[in-house]
């Protein structure tokens, strides 16, 4: 009895800032709704679910905006373990919008498949919820939980087409390697906890350096932790799962993985680098430098050889990840920290828009051709000029050709690299420049198919594009063009994104 009193005396309920948590709560509510409705409504009405989930995501945008407008710029809860700052808000917005587009991409696909629709939306939303949490987590535990929260549904999504062995394979590979990577990461985290005696990132930052009594342990810890997220962003050599999974998983899921979950990985990486390891840059800078160089190059050269369009896009997204990593390789150097953060966020935004657009076109085309081969795009321009032009725009943007979004993203990355004015920066910039040329090798190849090759089996029946899909294409293409012609728009948000409590040089 007195023990009970003792407990109650010591127990202090944590103050929860519900406004700060509102986006997560909305999404959580939405996914519960989807889960429950799925049990009751009959097969013919299941399309409601997609509507619900899409509106859930849009609704979640509202608190994000109100938070952005509210004067309290930083809200922290649970003893700074969960922080809502500009960075997290921007990324939340990105995730929600990306998720919304994914929903649009999926709806028709899901409706036509004879698979479990309700589960699909449920899993999608919960994974997104994990991502939202990831943006605000500032503690090893919460980061870990968020990571698993967004990963486990993703594993299941990858294997969602139960009877398709390819889909199974994709799921299993993703799962096995994902779990393994997170296990390795956890080992690193445990060491980190041991050295710094805290799981709070800001506390860790104070104690984690490249030198000191436990230098070796710290190095091990930092590397292992970074590996965990390098896996998420499919950086070479932790990328191996990506091509297989992307190819095997249903196309909308691939879009989701290649954009959202990759972005989540980068979010965690950035947060860790800026808030947990700012003093240990001697450890992670060289590591990320090598990762970035390898990722760009290997991704590109392997993409050159792909026949399957999805697989090619998988490799391309790997090499794009390399470009995102570029500025982080010098993020610890004086003066380039903030611009590196900015360029990573900017790249995420633009890359999300463009890559989703690519998948939109792929989905639309595969509705007709039922094939994933690059050659299935032959003569696309002649019978579906709009799709042809859109695909060209998106690919050109990925290749970084002005005046399309991609170029400003690459440009910002180069800029922050050169801002460090260090030899490493220049070297990586040259590598990046060369890679951006190689990249056109395969992007141009697809363009060539679209514009210059004959139509395979010469049926030129036009393609019916469902409304949701065309809406998605509209959003992405407009975004791609706008970001390219008026880069200020995207750059503005990227510039706003500051991480509270980050130590930026």
């Amino acid at each position, binding site marked *: 009895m007195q023990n009970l009193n003792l407990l109650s005396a010591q127990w202090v309920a944590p103050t929860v800032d519900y406004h700060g948590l509102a986006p997560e709560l909305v999404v959580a509510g939405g996914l519960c709704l989807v889960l429950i409705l799925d049990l009751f409504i009959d097969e013919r009405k299941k399309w409601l679910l997609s509507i619900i989930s899409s509106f859930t995501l849009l609704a979640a945008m509202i608190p994000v905006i109100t938070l952005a407008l509210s004067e309290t710029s930083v809200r922290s809860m649970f003893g700074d373990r969960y922080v809502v700052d500009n960075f997290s808000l921007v990324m939340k917005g990105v995730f929600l919008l990306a998720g919304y587009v994914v929903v649009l991409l999926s709806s028709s696909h899901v409706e036509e498949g004879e698979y479990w629709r309700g589960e699909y939306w449920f899993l999608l939303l919960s994974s997104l919820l994990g991502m939202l949490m990831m943006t605000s987590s500032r503690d090893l535990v919460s980061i870990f939980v968020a990571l698993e929260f967004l990963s486990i549904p993703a594993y299941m999504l990858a294997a969602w087409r139960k009877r398709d062995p390819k889909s199974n394979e994709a799921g299993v590979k993703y799962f096995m390697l994902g779990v393994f990577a997170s296990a390795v990461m956890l080992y690193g985290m445990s060491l980190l906890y041991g050295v710094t005696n805290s799981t709070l990132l800001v506390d860790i930052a104070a104690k984690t350096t490249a030198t000191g009594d436990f230098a070796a342990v710290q*190095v091990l810890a930092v590397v292992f932790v970074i*590996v965990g997220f390098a896996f998420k962003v499919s950086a070479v050599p932790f990328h191996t799962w990506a091509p297989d999974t992307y190819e095997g998983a249903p196309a909308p899921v691939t879009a989701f993985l290649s954009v959202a979950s990759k972005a989540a990985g980068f979010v965690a990486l950035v947060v860790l680098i800026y808030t947990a390891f700012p003093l240990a840059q001697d450890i992670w800078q060289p590591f990320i430098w090598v990762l970035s160089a390898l990722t760009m190059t290997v991704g590109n*050269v392997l993409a050159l050889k792909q026949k399957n369009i999805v697989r090619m896009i998988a490799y391309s997204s790997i090499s794009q990840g390399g470009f995102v990593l570029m500025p982080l390789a010098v993020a610890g150097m004086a003066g380039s920290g903030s611009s590196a953060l900015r360029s990573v966020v900017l790249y995420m935004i633009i890359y999300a828009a463009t890559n989703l657009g690519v998948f939109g076109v792929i989905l639309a085309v595969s509705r007709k051709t039922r094939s994933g081969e690059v050659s299935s795009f032959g003569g696309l321009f002649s019978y579906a000029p709009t799709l042809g032009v859109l695909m060209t725009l998106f690919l050109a943007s990925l290749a970084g050709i002005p005046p399309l979004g991609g170029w400003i993203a690459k440009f910002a990355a180069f800029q922050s690299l050169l801002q460090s004015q260090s030899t490493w920066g220049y070297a990586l910039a040259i590598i990046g420049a060369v890679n951006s040329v190689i990249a056109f090798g395969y992007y141009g190849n697809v363009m060539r198919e679209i514009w210059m090759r004959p139509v395979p089996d010469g049926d030129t029946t036009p393609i019916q594009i469902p409304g949701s899909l065309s809406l998605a294409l509209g959003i992405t293409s407009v975004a791609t063009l706008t970001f390219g012609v008026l880069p200020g728009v995207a750059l503005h948000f990227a510039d706003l994104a500051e991480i509270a409590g980050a130590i930026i040089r």
Partner: protein
Amino acid sequence: MNLFSNADAEVLAPLTSGWFLDHAWLIPVVPAIAFALIILFGKRMPFKGSELGVLSMLASLVLSTGAGYQWIQRVNSATEEQFVDPVIKSWTWWQNAGFEFGIGQHIDGLAVLVLFVVAFISTLVQIYSLEYLRGDRRYTHFFAALTLFSGGMLAMVLADNMMLLLLGWEIMGLCSFMLIGHWWEEDVNSKAALKAFFTVRVGDVGLLVGISMLYFAANDWTRENLDVSGFSIRGISAWALSGEPNSTVIMIAAVALFIACIGKSGQFPLHTWLPDAMAGPTPVSSLLHSSTMVVAGVYLVARLYPVFFVGLDIPGGGGNLIVIIGGITIVISAALAFVQNDIKRVLAYSTVSQLGYMMLGLGAGAWMPAVFHIFTHAFFKACLFLGAGSISHSASHHSFDMKRDMGGLRKVMPITFATWIISTLALCGVFPFSGFFSKDEIIDNVGHNGYGLFMIIALIGAFMTAAYMTRATYLTFFGKPRGASAGHADHSAHDAHDAHDSHDAHASSGPHESGLLITVPLIILSVLALSSGFLNATPFGESWERMKLWVEPRHSAFAPELHHAPFMWSKALMSLAIVFLGIAVSWVLSFRLFTKRDPRLVGLTQRVKILGVGHKFLVNKYYLDDFYEKIIVRNIAGPIASAAYWINQNILDGIIHKIASSSRLISGWVYRNIDQRVVDGAVNNSASFTKSVGTAAQPSQSGKVSQYGALLFSAAGVAALVLVIINT
């Protein structure tokens, strides 16, 4: 530069000028406009535009005559020994970055003289062409080109700066290209046109380089002292004489310019294009390639005389580039003239050698006689060419082969014959024909200025000239009629172009005298060939040397001091004797050889080895052009042949062909190996290289989970290890 201030300070008679002198710039403008009109409207005109050409020529003839008259007045208004300033007008054409390119006129005695000659000859040739090319397919084009040519030449003559001179120079080149290739259906003609333009173009490199050098060397000085740009001819002349210029610079510049003259005036070794250029219609040959265009080079030397005077140390005597080239050209081409059967080719070679005389004279400081030779030579050479044309046109079915299609024509075409004889005597330099007064003066002065060796060469040249002209005359007009001129038309012998002359009415009717449009120009020209010499008849004393008075610039800051050999009948008689000897010998030999078929002479070349070799040597133009082709044709192997082949290929004319052919070879090689393999290959290889890298990297993507895991963890481990090592 006090020199000029003094010149101004002296009390001088004010020089008169006049409308014609002040507006001399109209002279080239008229033909230029006419050209445009012919091109635009020619086809729709009653006479297919030819009337425009003739009229414009007449106009510029009138203008230049007026200019000449007023120039004479101007000279007379000047005191003795006073330098008669040229009438210079100049407007800025364009300028930037301190460079100023003027456009304007520079009229002095020399310019006036050449202007008159060009306008005069052009007019006659155009009139002549009315008949000669009647009914030709490209009648209008022909007259357009002819007019444009005259415009270019006139522009070059009165140019006041090098840029304008270059402009006229190049336009002439273009026109000669168009005119030589006038009957371009035959490969021969277009090839000849190409060769002519290209050879001259090679020389033009010298012109470009020379102009540039002179500009940069002289510009500052001229700006400072005369306030004209370094392109101004007047400025350059003064600068050259001012003692300022660095001797090597001006020497190189002079040589560079002279290379251009070699190309244009068909001097050795670039003379080979000139005979080929005879592929063009006869009027073209007589206008461009005998009397006017080819003297452009000579004119350039005379125009910029101070540069050559100083640069090549002409007063030094002994020998210099110009005289050497001139001398060689005289003899070599004269010798070639002996073995030609094509009458036009004989005349072509004689032109080359006469140009050699002019160069020789200029090189040896005999400025006045050389310029005077331009004057006289124009008349009799044009007359000879037109005569040849008249023969082929009316007597020999457009054949120019003396041995096969001519002979005994003196009876059937008396006028042509008479004019021909007069001009021939003039060409040979027989007193009192015009040639004597110019050529003999050149020879005389060359010796007097200390170029003894070259005087002898010139005399030999005179002998040979007389000889080959006699041979040609004999073959053409004496002996028995042969081939076409004998009436039995041998159509295979026709000159290629009558395929294009629609009117061939008289071809079947036998040889006859040509129409008035042809004979009248002949007569006029022959009269001038007879009389023009007296304009500067040194033998009769100072009072007769009008040309010298009018044309030769008096010694001043702008003109070097020129010496004149005192005329001596002894020397004159000696050279005359040589000439007559040449005529006589040649006459006798020709008579015995061609008429009597004297067994001792016929086939002499076959019998006597040495002669045979020499003859063959000549026939083949010193193996410059044809011989090696023959060798190719006959596939003669063996050291001598291949050696000769090598020489031809590599030396002299070979150079031109070689440049073309070998650069084609080289370029082919370069293109195939360097461009396509190395440079281009590098790119393609790099592409394939990246692909192969991809292939190499693919096995890592084995699709096996456990291997992926291994890779994942080993990478992490290695990274950790390396970083631990570098950090602790």
